[in-house]
C-alpha cells in the first residue's frame, strides 16, 4: 500500500460488490460493517439536518460533507481512544465517530461560539477554518506524544497517533508543506488524511497539482497512499495501517482519499457556476453510503437487515429531532465573554473596555437612532 500511488485502491465497487483483498483486516480487526453503515447514515443525517437548519435561518452557514462519509467513517473508525484528531471544518462524520455531540458542531455555524466543544473530552480538536494551519498543530502534538514516550512501546493502551485532516486545496498552502517536512525528518506519529474531494471551492484539483495528492509525500520521503474515498472498507484498512504504523514508531503517512464533495462548498456557494450537474450525478452514482448498503442488503440480504434498517430509520429521526431542538437551545454567549477569554487574567484596560461595553449593552441602545 506504500508503493507509488496510482489508481486509488478499492475493494468495494459502486455496485456493492466486495473484492477479497488480504490488506483488508479480518477477524477482531475487521471493520464492523453494520456499525460503519450506521455511522455513515447517522452522520449524513447530521449533515442533512444542518443544511435544513441553515435554510431556516438557524445557522449562518454549513459546509456539507455529503459524499465524503466513506472517507471520514473509514478514518474515524480506525481511531483508538488515545489517538488525537485535528480536523478542518468538514469532518462531521469523524466528529461523530470520535463521539463529539453533533449539536456541539452547530455552534460555530450558528454564531454562538467559535469553538463548541472541549477538545480534551474526545481528543477531537476544534474545527480550523484557516486552510492548512491545523497540520502544524498535529505535528506539534505528535512531537509531544514522542516526548511523552507514547510511541512504539507496543502497549496498545499507551501508543498514540495523531490524525490530521486536510483538503486537496490545503496541499498548496506553505504551512501544510512545512508540516510534511517536520513530520518526515522527525519521523512523527502523524497521519495526514487528505480528502481529495476534487474541489477547493471553485478550483478543480488540477489548479493545485498535476500529480495525485498522495504523491506529494514522496517528495518529503514518507509513504503516500491513494485510496477510493467512497469505499469505507478500503479507507478503514488504509487508515488503520497508517495509524498503526504511526503508533508503533514507523512515522508519518499521507493518505489521499479520492472522493467528491457532492454539495456546494457551503450553503453560501453556487456550485453550478463552476461545475455541471451531470458530473455531480456521476459521483452520486458512486456514493459511499449507497455502496455499503448495496453490499449489506445484497442478494437476499443477511438475516436481520430489515430490522436493522428500520431501527436505524427511527434512530435517524430521533437524532434529527435532537439536533433541531439542540440547535435552538444552544446558549448565546454573554457580551462579556470575549473580554473574559482573551487572556488568562483580564488586564485593567480590557476591564475598562468591558465595563463600558456592558454598560452600553445594558443601557438599551437605540434611544436616538
Amino acid at each position: 500500500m506504500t508503493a507509488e500511488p496510482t489508481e486509488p485502491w478499492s475493494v468495494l465497487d459502486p455496485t456493492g460488490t466486495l473484492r477479497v483483498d488480504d490488506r483488508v483486516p479480518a477477524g477482531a480487526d475487521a471493520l464492523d460493517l453494520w456499525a460503519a453503515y450506521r455511522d455513515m447514515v447517522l452522520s449524513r443525517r447530521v449533515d442533512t439536518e444542518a443544511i435544513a437548519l441553515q435554510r431556516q435561518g438557524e445557522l449562518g452557514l454549513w459546509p456539507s460533507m455529503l459524499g465524503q462519509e466513506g472517507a471520514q467513517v473509514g478514518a474515524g473508525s480506525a481511531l483508538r481512544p488515545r489517538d488525537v484528531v485535528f480536523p478542518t471544518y468538514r469532518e462531521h462524520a469523524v466528529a461523530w465517530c470520535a463521539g463529539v455531540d453533533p449539536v456541539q458542531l452547530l455552534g460555530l455555524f450558528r454564531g454562538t461560539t467559535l469553538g463548541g466543544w472541549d477538545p480534551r473530552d474526545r481528543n477531537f480538536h476544534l474545527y480550523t477554518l484557516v486552510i492548512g494551519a491545523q497540520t502544524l498543530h498535529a505535528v506539534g502534538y505528535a512531537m509531544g506524544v514522542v516526548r511523552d514516550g507514547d510511541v512504539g512501546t507496543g502497549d496498545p493502551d499507551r501508543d498514540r497517533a495523531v490524525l490530521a485532516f486536510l483538503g486537496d486545496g490545503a496541499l498548496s498552502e506553505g504551512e501544510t508543506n512545512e508540516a510534511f517536512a517536520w513530520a518526515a525528518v522527525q519521523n512523527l506519529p502523524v497521519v495526514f488524511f487528505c480528502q481529495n474531494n476534487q474541489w477547493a471551492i471553485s478550483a478543480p484539483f488540477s489548479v493545485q497539482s498535476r500529480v495525485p495528492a498522495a504523491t506529494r509525500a514522496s517528495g518529503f520521503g514518507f509513504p503516500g497512499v491513494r485510496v477510493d474515498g467512497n469505499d469505507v472498507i478500503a479507507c478503514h484498512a488504509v487508515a488503520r495501517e497508517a495509524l498503526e504504523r504511526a503508533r508503533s514508531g514507523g512515522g508519518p503517512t499521507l493518505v489521499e482519499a479520492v472522493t467528491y464533495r457532492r454539495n456546494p462548498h457551503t450553503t453560501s456557494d453556487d456550485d453550478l457556476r463552476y461545475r455541471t450537474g451531470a458530473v455531480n450525478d456521476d459521483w452520486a452514482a458512486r456514493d459511499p453510503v449507497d455502496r455499503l448498503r448495496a453490499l449489506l442488503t445484497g442478494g437476499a440480504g443477511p438475516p436481520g437487515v430489515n430490522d436493522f434498517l428500520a431501527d436505524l430509520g427511527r434512530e435517524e429521526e430521533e437524532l434529527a429531532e435532537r439536533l433541531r431542538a439542540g440547535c435552538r437551545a444552544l446558549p448565546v454567549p454573554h457580551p462579556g465573554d470575549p473580554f473574559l477569554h482573551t487572556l488568562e487574567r483580564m488586564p485593567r484596560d480590557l476591564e475598562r473596555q468591558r465595563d463600558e461595553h456592558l454598560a452600553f449593552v445594558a443601557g438599551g441602545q437605540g434611544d436616538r437612532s
Partner: protein
Amino acid sequence: MAHALNAGLRACLEEDPKVVLIGEDIGRLGGVFRVTDGLREDFSDERVVTSPLGEAGIVGSAIGLAMAGYRPVCEIQFDGFVFPAMNQITTQLAKYRHRSEGRISLPVVIRIPVGGGIGAIEHHSESPEAYFAHTPGLRVLCPSTSQDAYDLLGQAIRCDDPVIFLEPKRSYWSKGEVDPEAPAVGMDRARVVRPGDALTLVTYGALVPVALKAAAVLAEEGRQVEVVDLRSLSPIDDDTVVESVRRTGRLVIAHEASQTGGIGGELAARVQARAFYDLEAPVLRVTGYDTPYPASRLEEDWLPNVDRLLEACDASLKH
C-alpha cells in the same frame, strides 16, 4: 459597491494589457463576493488567474509579475486569510522600492474584503488595516462609496506603489451610481463628507454611513458634526483632519479594528500634537475592543454603531 469594483477592474483590464488579476476562485466563480464576475470570460484565464490555495504564492508571484512589467491585482478571499502573505507583503513588497534605491517599482494591488457585520464565522470579519499602515512602503486605501470604490481602485492600479485595497464587505451590497468620467479626488486625500462646526467625526469604510447617521441625529438636536472619510489609511491625510479640528475643537475617531495600535490612536496622537491648543476636549475613540472578533451572535452590539458614536460625541461635546 461590488458592481463598482467590478466595473473598475474591467476598465483597468481594458485600458492596460499588463493588468492581471490573481486570486482564489476569481475565475469561473467570480470570487466569493462576485467582484470579478464575468471578467475571466471577457479577458481570458491568463489575465484572470484562479490561483492555487496559497496567499504567500498570490502575493509573491504578483511581485515577480510586477518585476516582469505587469500590474497584478491580487484578491485575498477574506481579511483573516491575509496573514500567510504577511512575509511577502512586509519584507518583500513594501521594501523593494527602497532596496532598489527607487529604481524598481512594484505596482501590485492587494484587494481584501474587510470588516464585520455580515454574520460571518471566524476569520471572516477582521480589520487588519493597522498592520499595513504600520508598514512603510505600502499605501492603504479604503473606500466608503461605490464612486470612491471605482475611483480609488483605478488610482491604485495605475499607481506605481504597492497598494493594500480594503473593501468594506458590509458595503458590497450597497447601491450607488458610478460615473466613470467624474473627476476623482486624489487618492491620498481624506474627504469631508458632511460639513459641520461642533465636532469632527473621522472614520472610514463601512462606518462612514454610520457616522453620517449619527451626524444626522445630532443635527436634529442642533449640533452640526463634520464627518471626515479618511479614505487613505496610509499615508494618513492628517492635514484635513487637523484643519477640521482647528474649527471644531473636538474629535471623535471610529473604526472596527481593535483599539490598541489602531489607526485611531495614531490619528489622535497626531491631532493632539498638531492642534493641541485648539482641542477643547480629549480626542475620543470608538473602536473594536481588544479581544478577538466575537462569535457573530454578539456582533450587532459589538460593532461601533450609531449609538456608540452618539455616546462618544455627547461625551466630547460635554467637555
